[in-house]
């Protein structure tokens, strides 16, 4: 694994090579690419050309007719997606997107400017799908599809986190996420994928979740959190699994079952549901909210997503609640019903505590836990003691997908402000619809890619550091499981004093539960404000 330079050693230069971008080949070096997909994972999903290979090798072991496969794949996708056709045709290269990409800001590599990332594909499109390109070639920015071009695609379509920030600034709405999705679909046709995407996707397909947690282990892990909660406040939650006839099916990213600090968020869900007495069940089959299929192809996205409705139908629930996750919610908002609906066996979600009918989820029949909680708080159904979070000075990171693929801005802020007394926004250019990516989304949250992740996360970290210096912010709240995992690493690297929290962990800290013992610590075992005397006295 590549050694990651220290923050003060990291060279960031926004220079340009002497050669034009078409004549500057992609150079793979440890730290700027993710390991390729393992054969067994491709096989598990039935994806083409499973084999062992490395981007550092000269020979990528492509099928002999790879060029034909890619070009036919392009034609097929141009016919299937108007977005693809339009985005290939209408860019004027005005450059508005150039410095909006976190990877460009953090790496200075010109091919990380969204416009050039798309040009990598566009140049081939011109050559093979436009008359001018066929005749005039390079004179009109067209070039042949060669192995070098393909390698360049692999590098840069796996250096994009599909965060859509560029699309916000594009005067025509050209969305690099869409271009990257097409690019990755094409790469997959000849067996080019990264293992951090195809591994979780294979796990999810067979075992129900990205981490490959098997049913019994899943139950064990959740029950472990039940014990943990009991140790904190004496309350024993009673989650159920694969239970037919429950009112609600709850699905959250498996990352929260597995690793800190997501686990605390998951404990928050358990406590909240217990306190309000929600009739809900977990599923071990549909035990994944996220969808790494989205980072592979539309087809794999659909294959993984199908489990949610299938399981809801089997269990006979009325509706689904989804946990805090980023890309999961882009899939649910923009793809799920069209791909796997209609969910006519479910009902429009109605909160059993408040009676609120969630008409905004009238067809997907799936609501976001944060919407659900915001409604509970608004209707006074929760007893909250925000002073229990007084040791935290909070800011909020809008995750890309709920931000630019949904418009989920006020709900989490409302919840946070009700459970935390200290809240400060980051600068306006870095939040809400203009939010900066964590730098590790879309399956790039692997260790071997760490240097690029720290570079890509710089704009986000920079904004956190700003409020850290200005207001003493020490808590970064998010509603995304990948964020919880990767922002922790990012903060350790750039702003070491800041800790990452899920919103429902903050809720759980403030939640006054019926019959609880006196709370002295938060979920992490840290003393609550006013409860730290003992340890302080010892120090003195």
């Amino acid at each position, binding site marked *: 694994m590549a050694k990651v330079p220290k923050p003060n050693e990291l060279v*960031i230069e*926004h220079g*340009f090579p002497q050669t034009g*971008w078409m004549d500057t080949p992609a150079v793979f070096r440890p730290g700027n690419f993710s390991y390729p997909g393992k054969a067994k994972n491709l096989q598990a999903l039935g994806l083409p050309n499973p084999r062992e290979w490395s981007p550092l090798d000269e020979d990528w072991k492509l099928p002999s007719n790879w060029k034909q496969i890619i070009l036919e794949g392009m034609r097929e996708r141009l*016919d*299937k997606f*108007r*977005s693809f*056709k*339009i985005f290939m*045709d*209408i860019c*004027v*290269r005005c*450059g*508005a997107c150039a410095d909006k990409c976190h990877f460009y*800001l953090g790496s200075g590599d010109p091919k990380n400017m969204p416009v050039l990332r798309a040009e990598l594909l566009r140049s081939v499109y011109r050559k093979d799908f*436009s008359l001018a390109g066929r005749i005039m070639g390079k004179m*009109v920015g067209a070039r042949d599809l060669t192995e070098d071009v393909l390698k360049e695609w692999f590098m840069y379509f796996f250096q994009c986190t599909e965060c*859509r920030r560029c*699309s*916000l*600034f594009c*005067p*025509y*709405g050209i*969305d690099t996420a*869409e271009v990257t999705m097409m690019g990755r679909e094409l790469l997959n046709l000849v067996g080019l994928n990264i293992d951090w995407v195809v591994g979780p996707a294979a796990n999810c397909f*067979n075992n129900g979740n990205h981490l490959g947690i*098997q*049913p*019994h282990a899943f139950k064990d892990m959740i029950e472990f959190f039940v014990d943990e909660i009991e140790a904190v406040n004496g309350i024993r939650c009673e989650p159920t*699994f*694969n*239970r*037919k006839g429950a009112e609600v099916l709850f699905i959250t990213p498996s990352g929260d079952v597995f690793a800190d600090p997501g686990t605390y968020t998951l404990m928050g869900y358990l406590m909240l549901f217990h306190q309000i007495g929600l009739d809900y069940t977990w599923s*071990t089959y549909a035990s994944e909210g996220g969808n790494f299929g989205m980072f592979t192809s*539309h087809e794999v996205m659909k*294959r993984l997503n*199908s489990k949610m409705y299938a399981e809801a139908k089997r269990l006979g629930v009325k509706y689904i609640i989804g946990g805090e996750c980023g890309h999961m919610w882009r899939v649910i*908002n*923009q*793809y799920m*019903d*069209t791909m796997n*609906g209609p969910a006519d066996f479910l009902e429009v979600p109605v909160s059993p505590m408040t009676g609120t009918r969630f008409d*905004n989820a*009238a067809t*997907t029949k799936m609501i976001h836990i944060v919407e659900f909680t*915001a409604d509970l708080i*608004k209707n006074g159904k929760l007893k909250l003691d925000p002073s229990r979070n007084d040791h935290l000075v909070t800011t909020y990171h809008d995750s890309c997908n709920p931000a630019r*693929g*949904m*418009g989920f*801005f*006020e*709900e989490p802020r409302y919840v946070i402000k009700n459970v935390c007394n200290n809240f400060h926004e980051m600068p306006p*250019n870095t939040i809400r*619809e*203009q939010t900066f990516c964590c730098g590790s989304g879309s399956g790039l949250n692997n260790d071997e890619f760490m240097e690029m992740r720290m570079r890509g996360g710089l704009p986000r970290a920079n904004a956190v550091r700003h409020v850290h210096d200005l207001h003493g912010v020490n808590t970064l709240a998010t509603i995304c499981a990948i964020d919880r995992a990767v922002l922790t690493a990012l903060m350790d690297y750039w702003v070491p004093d800041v800790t990452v929290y899920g919103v429902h962990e903050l809720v759980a800290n403030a939640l006054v539960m019926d019959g609880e013992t006196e709370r002295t610590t938060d979920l992490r075992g840290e003393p609550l404000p006013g409860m730290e005397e003992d340890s302080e006295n010892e120090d003195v």
Partner: protein
Amino acid sequence: MGIRFSLVAVVALVLAAFLGVGTAGLNHFFGVTVPSIALVVFLGGVVFRVLKWGRSPVPFRIPTTAGQQKTLSWIPQNKLDNPSTKMQTVGRMVLEVLLFRSLFRNTKFEIEKGPKLYYQWEKWLWLASLAFHYCFLVILIRHLRFFTDPVPFFVHDIERLDGFFQVGLPGLYLTDAIFMLAVTYLLIRRLIIPQLRYISLPQDYFPLFLLFTIGTTGILTRYFTKVDLIKVKQLAIGIISFHPVVPEGIGVIFFIHLFLVSTLLIYFPFSKLMHAGGIFLSPTRNLPNDSRFKRHVNPWNYPVKVHTYAEYEDHFREKMVEAGLPVEKELDEAPVTAQNSTEG
């Protein structure tokens, strides 16, 4: 390279018209034949391109949401940046098409040691683009006086506004000046901003050189070399009324102007200039964010291989039973050799 190629192309076009009319006397070819072909190619080409886009479906609703979604009743929705109805989407599109709202968000980054990033105010591109497009529109409308008889009232109104300051003689049109300034700005920024220079292709410089030269020749004919407007109008109206005539004695500068405009018309449908039509069809802008409460059908939706619950339970039944998880079939009901049948 891109710059030189585009510049040479435009110079060649100018020379072609200059020699064609000035030396070879191909007045009819440059005055009637080329412009007529150009008009047909322009109209046909634009329609062809748009229909070609229309042949591909929009399978998924993928608007870029730039504001608060429609949600709980007490949270105000940002209806223009995150529309949920057709009318709201029209509102968003109107702002996008008429005011370049997305471009208005533009910022410019700066990095300092630390590293520390800053995002600065940058509205020049927005301003220049808006100025360029609107001046172009006004100039086009003003040119209607050569193509209509009688001249409709709005042409006069626009001329009056445009020449409001009554500077010089013939009166200076503000749009002429702003158009040239804006085109120059757009060209210069492409040359001096390193990012832009690096991404620019010949087809980015070509239209700018072309527009610059069109503007220059237009200004020459109006303000400096002069041209007999009566003859120009006779020629112009002749083309669009299908009674073409080429009066004697129109200066060669006019023919260069006309030839370059014809080139622009022919070039338009097959180039990035089609962004004018494309913006209307851009799925990240022209769709309401309503896919959670309104069902949409993907016309090419097809069944995919899924891993069913039955397969899952077959695979894990023993472990599930042992862990006390409910199962559909108990151990003794299930086939003895349960296989994980997911591959393929």
